[in-house]
């Protein structure tokens, strides 16, 4: 915990956050503007980029459910996946109404939590 406690100057964490957090993050965003500025909206390459971006976010979703950190990690993996699947089924069945999907997923999660706790 040398970073957060001890004899560092008060401004050091801010410099650390800026150099190790902000710069590596916004450099990618700026690279995206430089690249995206050259692509036409109807370009076929844009479909590829969109597919990759979508798959990346989907991988984040998968990891949040299968390899979570924090309070979800104590639940069986089957409960987490089952709850998301149940929510997705309800979302599709209700004509893609997000609110119903979320309510169903949460209800399934809570039921799973209660069922596995006993």
């Amino acid at each position, binding site marked *: 915990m040398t*970073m957060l406690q001890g004899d560092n100057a008060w401004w050091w964490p801010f410099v650390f956050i800026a150099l190790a957090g902000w710069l590596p993050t916004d450099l*990618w965003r700026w690279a995206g503007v430089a690249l995206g500025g050259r692509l036409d909206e109807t370009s076929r390459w844009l479909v590829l980029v969109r597919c990759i971006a979508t798959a990346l976010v989907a991988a984040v979703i998968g990891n949040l459910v299968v390899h979570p950190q924090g309070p979800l990690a104590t639940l069986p993996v089957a409960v987490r996946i089952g709850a998301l699947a149940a929510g997705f089924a309800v979302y599709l069945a209700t004509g893609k109404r997000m609110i119903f999907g979320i309510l169903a997923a*949460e209800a399934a999660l809570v039921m799973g*939590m209660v069922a596995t706790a006993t």
Partner: protein
Amino acid sequence: MRECYARIMSSAFPREPVQTDEPTGSAGRWFLRGARTALSLPGLILCGAFIGFGAIARDTGLSLAEAMFMTAIIWALPAQIVLLGAMASGASLPAAAIAVTLTSVRLMPMVVAIVPEMRTGRTRRWVLYLLSHFVAVTSWVLAMERFRDVPRERRTAFYGGIGSTLIAAMLVVLVIVYGTAAALPPLAAAALVFLTPAYFLFSLWSSARERASHGAMLGGMALGPVLHPVLPGFDLLAAGLIAGFAAFAFHVLTSRAEGGR
């Protein structure tokens, strides 16, 4: 019957007003519409995620000012969590920067995808560079979903409204989290954290432009967790590239079969 049901539901949960009959309206007005779009269900769900982040940051020993600075300047939750972990374990600055670089690569294709939708012939370069800072999953998904109802020349103002409102709201959330001492009961905490993947899944599915994106989603969702233990640090990138290219190949093949659109 189904139509009636849909109407009742849409009045119970109104979406942002769709005003395609009124082509422009001032930039300020669209900025405010963007702000209002941000203060909706997705914004509420992001609040849940940031309550979680605030709790972790507080437990790690970050001050409120540092947590707020980190949120405003990075504005990408996975990168923030990674940086927090690096700071807590006393990692060196280069090591932390490399870890953040790897989690933030995913933002580049997201920016590449959104920029052509906001740009007009007269859009200034610096506006796009400035707005790119707002690109993170929630604002990106919201914008990709709503842009079709926003006149093209007002999309930058609209996106500016979404992004700045979301950041401001999350800073308020952090102030509140740091101000409350009590920890959440585990059941509530788990339910709150689970909002994020559920919301991401449904909104990403709704915002898909072509069928290939749905394929990319299913592929990425399956590959991410599989690759996570095998390629730590590179799992998201690898899953995105493999599932993205596969879905694109599917798109090229099927659109050719349909007569090459």
